[in-house]
């Protein structure tokens, strides 16, 4: 089959084109660097099927970021039969800069000129034919989003793969062309493939190339003496980049016709540099749509408050039982007190509930009813008691407890995806970079972190956009602390149960508080790491700010559908299996005799649970708990497989532990409050339990991802140690603070001192040794 690779700048629409061509549903976002790995699919609408490879977006074929290396390796080593170079028409010059590098490789190329419609909407136009004539490669205008021009594009691809193409360069007029020619001949003599491409990279003294052909470096160095560029001197990398852009501005940019209006304005302003106006894209003070939005969203004073407000809004819509705090207004409160109405509990409860809570409530009603039907059905065919128990408490209890939270998880995920799709996230990185730098990170680290609220796995993979290794390791390690969708049931169910059992108001604030604790832990850990084991400067922050655009319904729907499938799959595989195992282990003793509900204490699970239980005593959910206290230890351990297991474990065990519990209610909150009643755990212990689950080793899948992303095995092992230690220490702190305020104040003061000393030691080296030596002198 023919192999085609999609190559282009970040955010130029490669993945949209990939999805349109192959019918797949890969994640698309409005943030440079959404695709960080290659993806494969098949185009089936042509005469013959064509294999399409989506590569990470790159600005250049230089070897500085992991994505650039992935793309470059694929193009050079895997030798696709054809390259589709996707060029964002709204950003012609910078996109063609990559084209001038790709065309140096011996491979047929078709240029897909994307977003021509957006250019035309702005009143400008692009002459694709003129561009094709100048550039010497086939150019096809497409709209990846609307699926226009795809057939023609793939038609041209099918034509050109039949031909052979030799690499060509735009550097013919550069002062370096003789050197390039000499190196090219030398490489050809060594029978190197793509000799032109390698020759130019070698002239630039590209790291990878110098390693490969160290024998030819002398040739380049000898040339240095003979050339002295007035701007770049002997810096050939600079000369080459500059020559490319000069060539583009002089030859290709004329394909871009500016809107008449702007040209007129320029004339009125008596612009003298007419040459610039013709060949270059407009650089004027007229505000674009994006600029107008940015005047507010990245405003000097409002930028940060607006960001915090948006973040609060997202969580408020997902978790609030009193949306917009309407319950606080007397007239509305009377109206929505809801007592006795059919809506109580689901839509209103002393306040109007948010969409997230309503969806969770409705889903809870549904899973409850299904549980009830299963019981009725089984009783109707007079099944034995253990069958009812296994299916209703074991199987459905576990699955239902997790499923009832799926709508809320999806809503949270949707809201963050909308923010990403509009292009706002890139602005947040811009706003926060200065703050992040204090912690030793660049603003770019913000994106994987916020992705962590959805799922740690793509978030960890996204850390590839961070160029500095140490910064990347530090960021990857704290990603699980940004509580993911699977941890949401733990938060909601336990804070809901705390509110019910201890009669505390404001469930949502316990939830927000827990999110904040996770973020604070991440922050402190990053500061500590960047000042100790992962010391280093934060990487440079040079990032494109994409234009704002309306989020695309289709891509959001696809994204949610993918996510929904993922959760359902998980519920009916991992969670189902774990639930059955847990149910069996609580109903059998070591001698394999079946135990009725009352004798759970002699079960296998209880035995195992009691062994590990003391481990969690400092955290408040260990040996100090009464009967059945081991369930919290067991839940924490099952959570290491998948975080949904924590609540499904409670759901399975609730029916067993609490005799009065009918087992038909599966909305998570009820189960947890049964557990609280049965074990006598304190609020502090519960909070510590949430904190532990939030900051400990994430699920199996995330651990596997971390292992794959951290190429160094030692770093991976330390990461596991880091997660265990952090969760243990932080949860212990929370328990101690909650239970015994005083001793803890000293503990915290000590912790602050240590962190402070480490930071100071980093800022002013030898701070700690100096103090220590002073102390020694005094002792003498």
């Amino acid at each position, binding site marked *: 089959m023919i192999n085609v690779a999609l190559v282009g700048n970040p955010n130029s629409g490669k993945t949209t084109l990939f999805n349109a061509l192959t019918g797949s549903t890969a994640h698309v976002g409005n943030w440079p660097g959404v695709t960080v790995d290659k993806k494969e699919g098949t185009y089936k609408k042509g005469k013959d099927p064509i294999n399409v490879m989506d590569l990470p977006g790159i600005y250049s074929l230089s070897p500085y970021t992991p994505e650039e290396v992935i793309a470059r390796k694929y193009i050079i080593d895997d030798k696709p039969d054809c390259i589709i170079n996707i060029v964002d028409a709204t950003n012609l010059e910078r996109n063609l800069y990559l084209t001038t590098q790709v065309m140096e490789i011996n491979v047929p190329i078709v240029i897909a000129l994307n977003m021509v419609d957006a250019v035309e909407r702005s009143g400008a136009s692009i002459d694709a034919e003129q561009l094709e004539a100048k550039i010497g490669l086939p150019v096809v205008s497409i709209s990846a989003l609307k699926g226009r021009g795809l057939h023609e594009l793939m038609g041209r691809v099918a034509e050109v793969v039949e031909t052979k193409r030799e690499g060509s360069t735009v550097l013919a007029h550069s002062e370096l062309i003789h050197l390039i020619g000499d190196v090219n001949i030398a490489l050809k003599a060594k029978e190197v493939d793509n000799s032109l491409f390698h020759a130019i990279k070698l002239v630039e003294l590209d790291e990878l190339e110098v390693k490969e052909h160290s024998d030819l470096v002398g040739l380049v160095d000898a040339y240095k003496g003979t050339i002295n560029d007035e701007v770049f001197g002997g810096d050939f990398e600079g000369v080459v980049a*500059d020559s490319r852009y000069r060539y583009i501005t002089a030859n290709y940019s004329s394909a871009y016709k500016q809107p008449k209006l702007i040209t007129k304005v320029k004339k009125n302003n008596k612009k003298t540099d007419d040459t610039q106006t013709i060949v270059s894209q407009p650089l004027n003070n007229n505000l674009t749509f994006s600029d107008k939005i940015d005047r507010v969203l990245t405003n000097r004073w409002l930028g940060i408050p607006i960001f915090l407000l948006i973040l609060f809004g997202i969580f408020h819509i997902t978790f609030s039982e009193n949306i917009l705090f309407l319950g606080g207004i007397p007239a509305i409160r009377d109206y929505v007190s809801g007592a006795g109405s059919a809506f109580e509990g689901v839509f209103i409860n002393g306040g109007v509930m948010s969409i997230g809570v309503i969806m969770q409530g409705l889903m809870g009603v549904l899973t409850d009813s299904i549980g009830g039907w299963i019981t009725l059905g089984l009783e109707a065919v007079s099944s034995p008691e253990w069958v009812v128990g296994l299916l209703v408490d074991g199987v459905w209890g576990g699955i239902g407890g997790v499923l009832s939270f799926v709508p809320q998880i999806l809503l949270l995920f949707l809201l963050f995806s909308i923010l990403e799709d509009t292009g706002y996230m890139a602005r947040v990185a811009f706003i926060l970079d200065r703050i992040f730098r204090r912690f030793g990170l660049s603003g770019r680290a913000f994106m994987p972190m916020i992705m962590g609220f959805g799922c740690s796995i793509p978030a960890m993979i996204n850390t590839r956009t961070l160029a500095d290794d140490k910064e990347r390791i530090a960021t990857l390690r704290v990603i699980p602390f940004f509580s993911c969708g699977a941890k949401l049931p733990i938060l909601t169910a336990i804070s809901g149960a705390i509110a019910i059992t201890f009669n505390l108001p404001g469930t949502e604030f316990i939830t927000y508080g827990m999110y904040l604790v996770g973020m604070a832990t991440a922050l402190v850990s990053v500061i500590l790491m960047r000042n100790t084991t992962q010391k280093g400067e934060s990487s440079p922050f040079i990032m494109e700010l994409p234009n704002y655009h309306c989020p695309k319904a289709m891509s959001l729907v696809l994204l949610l559908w993918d996510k929904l499938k993922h959760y359902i799959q998980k519920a009916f595989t991992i969670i189902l299996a774990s639930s059955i195992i847990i149910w069996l282990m609580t109903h059998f003793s070591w001698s394999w005799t079946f135990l009725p509900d009352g004798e759970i204490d002699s079960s296998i699970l209880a035995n195992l649970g009691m062994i590990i239980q003391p481990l969690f005593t400092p955290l408040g959910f260990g040996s100090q708990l009464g009967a059945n206290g081991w369930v919290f230890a067991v839940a924490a351990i099952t959570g290491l497989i998948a975080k949904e297991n924590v609540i499904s474990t409670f759901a399975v065990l609730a029916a067993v532990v609490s005799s009065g519990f009918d087992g038909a209610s599966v909305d998570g909150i009820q189960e947890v409050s049964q557990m609280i009643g049965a074990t006598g755990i304190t609020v502090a212990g519960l909070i510590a339990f949430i904190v532990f689950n939030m900051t400990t080793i994430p699920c199996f899948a995330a651990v596997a991802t971390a292992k794959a992303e951290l190429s160094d095995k030692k770093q991976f092992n330390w990461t596991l140690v880091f997660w265990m230690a952090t969760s243990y220490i932080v949860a212990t702190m929370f328990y101690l603070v909650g239970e015994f305020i005083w001793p803890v104040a000293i503990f915290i003061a000590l912790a602050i001192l240590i962190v402070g000393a480490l930071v100071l030691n980093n800022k002013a080296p030898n701070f700690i040794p100096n103090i220590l030596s002073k102390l020694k002198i005094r002792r003498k």
Partner: protein
Amino acid sequence: MIKKLNEFIIGEKGIVKTVGGDGRIRRRMLDMGITPGADILLKKKAPLGDPIEISIRGYSLTLRNAEAELVGLEVIK
């Protein structure tokens, strides 16, 4: 007169004359189109004064003052 990009005020325009720095940072800036002859407009500064947002070759780019300091421009009146 050559003025460094980090000394620009909002709304000021210039033509790139020199690009300093080395290694990864310099290469990145060149790749992003900050090369001699390119027009740059300083669009805005982040709420805390750093990083900055510029308009170059028809798109928006953000970079820190530390990186902007490496770019020398001739101011266009």
